[in-house]
């Protein structure tokens, strides 16, 4: 038996390699579709300007600001007494809470951690690391409000 001692080792190694390769290959063919399936499709959303609905426009008028959907992101549209109609990303750059416009102080506030931005989206105080993205908002001739996506 001792003459043939190396042979089983080789066979066993081959077997282990075969099992390993088969297992890895099989796992790959199972996991690849599953992982691709689980990753949500990137939402394209509306690329062009978004138009505020009648309800949103009424809310803007009543509360001086409104938060609207643009694809999967949120946009804060507000009308400041001094600076007029403005639009900023509504997602706080700190931890993603939804910000609000505070008419009395003319600031944009994130209530989660008291992050404060000015009306151009620049950080005034608190933990936000970056300014809010700014968009162009305008009122059409017929009174409807349009927000152009893409930084102004």
């Amino acid at each position: 038996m001792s003459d043939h001692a190396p042979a089983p080792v080789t066979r066993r190694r081959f077997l282990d390699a075969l099992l390993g390769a088969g297992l890895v290959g099989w796992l790959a063919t199972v996991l690849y579709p599953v992982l691709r399936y689980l990753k949500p499709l990137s939402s394209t959303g509306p690329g062009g300007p978004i138009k505020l609905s009648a309800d949103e426009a009424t809310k803007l008028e009543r509360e001086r600001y409104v938060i609207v959907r643009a694809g999967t992101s949120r946009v804060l549209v507000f009308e400041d007494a001094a600076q007029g109609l403005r639009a900023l990303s509504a997602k706080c750059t700190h931890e993603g809470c939804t910000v609000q416009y505070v008419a009395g102080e003319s600031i944009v506030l994130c209530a989660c951690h008291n992050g404060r931005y000015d009306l151009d989206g620049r950080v005034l105080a608190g933990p936000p690391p970056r300014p809010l993205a700014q968009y162009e908002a305008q009122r059409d001739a017929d009174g409807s409000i349009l927000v152009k996506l893409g930084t102004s």
Partner: protein
Amino acid sequence: MSAPERRRGRLFRWLDSRYQLQPVVDFLEHKEVPVGVHSLIWYYLGGTTLFFFVVQIASGVLLLMYYQPGEATAYESIRYITTKVPFGWLIRSVHCWSAHLMIVSLVAHMFSTLMLKAYRPPRELTWVTGFLLFAVALGFGFSGYLLPWNELSFFATSVGTDSVKEIPVIGDWLLQVLRGGTEVSINTLYRFFGLHVVILPLAAFAIIAVHLLFIQRQGMAPPVHPPATPRAMKFFPNFAVRDLLIWLLCLAALTSLAVFLPYGPGVPGVEWELGKKANPLAPAYPGIKPEWYFLWVYQLLKEFPPHLVGGLEGPQAALLLVGGLLVVWALIPWLDRSARRNEPSPAFTDFGMAALLFIAFLTLKAWDIGGGAGKVPDARAVAWTTAWYALGVALVSVVVRAVVYRHRWFLFTGAFAVHVVLHGLVGLPYLLAGAIGIGVLLAALGGLKLRGRGAVALLVVLGAVSAARADEPLPPALQKMFDARRPDGAPVIPPAQREYFAKLPDRVRALVAEAADATILGSAEHARRLFALNLPPTAFELLIKDNCIVCHTDPGNVEARTLFSADPKADKSSPRLNLKEFASDVHFRRGVSCSGCHGGSPTDLNMTDAIAERWPSEEDRAKSHAWIPAFCARCHSDAAYMRSFNQALPTDQLAKYKTSRHGQRLLVEGDDKAAQCASCHGGHGIRSAKSPKSMVHPQRVPETCGACHADARYMAGEKTDRGEPLPTNQLEQYRKSAHGKALLEKGDLGAPACNSCHGNHAAQPPAVASVSEVCRVCHVTNGRLFDGSKHKIAFEKHGWPECAQCHGKHDIAKANDELLADGAERLCHACHAKDAPDNKECDATASHFHATLGELAGSMTAYTVEGEELAKKGLDVEPLTNVLGELEESLVKAREGIHSFDKDTFDRLADPARAAAKKSQELIDASRKEYRFRQGGLLAAIGAMSLLALGIYLTLRRIESRKP
């Protein structure tokens, strides 16, 4: 430390020191599987069922990541999964395939357990838990079927849940609990969703745990007669590794099926193409069937008549039978006394085979095998064909068991064969044949006296129930009619008519009794005739309240000349007095019965003078039909009166009729052959024009007009405006025309009939100048383009009837691109050769039209075929279908462009079609690429699985080659 302990390593020692795993390992190491008597394959089926269940859970959880139950989201989310989410089609397809394969594996496992008698003590509860798992699996199938919220699942669930109401006592309650209301609605979806993803999985996990625990504790059942020197295989690793190998094979098969047949094999009950979204208001369509494992119950419900003796309803009896069979099935471990004594029990083997054959026969019948290609399968032919299949399988089973296993007990299979022969080959009703089969079985089981007594007791109970539900007594006059018998002893009023009477509302039955008391309903035969009309209760109420028609339907009361009969020929009465027609008459149904035209009152018991006052005498009626239009107009021209029936009905028919060619001939020229109201609408069977049986329903108009206009003898001597003999071939030509085929063959009610061009009450032949105006009513664009073309001027110059010049009149053929083909056959050729010869520009334009349209139409056909093939392969062809829809629409516009007779205008109109064709080609290329990717992926997966399987197989050999 022993060698095995050293091998297990530190992690095991760590766990063992805390959780004492060693005894479990010792137990598993000693666990064995008996080998050497049965084929080992039967022992793997539980494992494969478990494997498919695990796949179900995994794929089900993945589907849950996107599925959204809800009226507006359920169907849409499944559609999104299968068309948009990467590999979503694969996950759904795997889930569906695995569900079916799990049921197949489970059923095979259950039958193998039955055949091997593995349920005998001490394993009774393993059988019961297995039976419960079978019920849970069916629950999974039934609840999951509805979740895509498509048409098929909606209707199948409606039908499936509806049968629940037949369960005695709790049926209605259970129906509402299942549906979350009285009808299948979105509430049902919510309930089924909860059932499918929470309740049933929890139940399944619990029962599987108990089932596996039992198996682990008791081990696998040894054969009834173990060999003298029993052999066994170690469960770990020998059997477990084999299990693993088989699971890999199952996975490879599952993946291949999911890729190549993503919507199932396409057999009714085994298909899951999404189709259309459920619409509770859409009518059901033929061919709705439950999943294959419910087909036998579905078919059994069909085989039972609606009502059985003793007040028992058919569906109730069918469900009782199914319930009884399932209870017997669950209790087999206790019923099979031989197996309890560890003795062979061929009777139960035969019972299992007969049950399998019984289910298979019903399933084959449900698939309508041998029923022909017609829309409605021939039930007799289905029974005949499926009977041969069932008998063939029964014979094979008997021969195999007799020769191979030396069984001598075939009474159940024999009784089944008797049933199949009598039903399928002799043609007896299913139930009767079944009863005879059971009778044969009981006779053969004569020795088992107890069971005979049980059957007698059952019959006594049924008889008692029947007696308790005996019908209430009828009033004497009516009772006498119901008791009347024919000379041969058969009742004059047969069971079907008795049943009809019994189902009438109480107030209508009271009216029948009154009529019998007043002797207006004169005899049993008279009553039979009225019941046999099978009218809806409201119509029957109108009939029985009208003394005129009741009297005139009594063959013993009026002479044949004035007898209304359902079969005027047999009764030798006038064909105009057809009772079936009269009962369908719109006037009768709206309450204007005999007296409405003839005078008198429906409550009169005798004929009165009032009838003669209103209705013209027989002599006057024979002279001329000219009185009819004014007679009908008494009501139909009275707007105030007509408003009480139908506000939308016009009241100017008489005024129009007077201006029509028919009216002129009859009323002015005194030609009695000219059509009047009754010629087109009929007499005693006038239906609403919406009824397909109405003489003026669009599809019947050509035939109605043709009754005179296609009759050469009737039309002899009639002349056209130009003084030529009026042709009588219009109907024949129309039937062959594009319009005729669309209306009469395809059922397109928008296609024109005679009255669309000629008018109806004001019917006139259109003059040459107005022919094209008639066509323009529908073919607007063609008319507009023609008006701007150079042909307009030329046609006017020649006095040609625009459209009719090229397309004809009654024989307008379907326009065909080949009419523009080069050569003498070209449509343009006939006129151009004579009036504009050698016009090269015209020829080139026509050739350009022909080539462009040919290319676009060819692309359209090819892409449609390609799209269908890609859809069958499970690819998302919705974008292609949309673009092909655009192509079809644009092609129609391009064809309209021909009528401009101008190359540039035509090209402008054909451009959208060219763009749609290009887009279609791109989409097809993308789909083909996707399909190649799927095939490649499958190949890679199968390759990897083969490699792994080879590795496992070699490992197994290495393990087994070791010395014990």
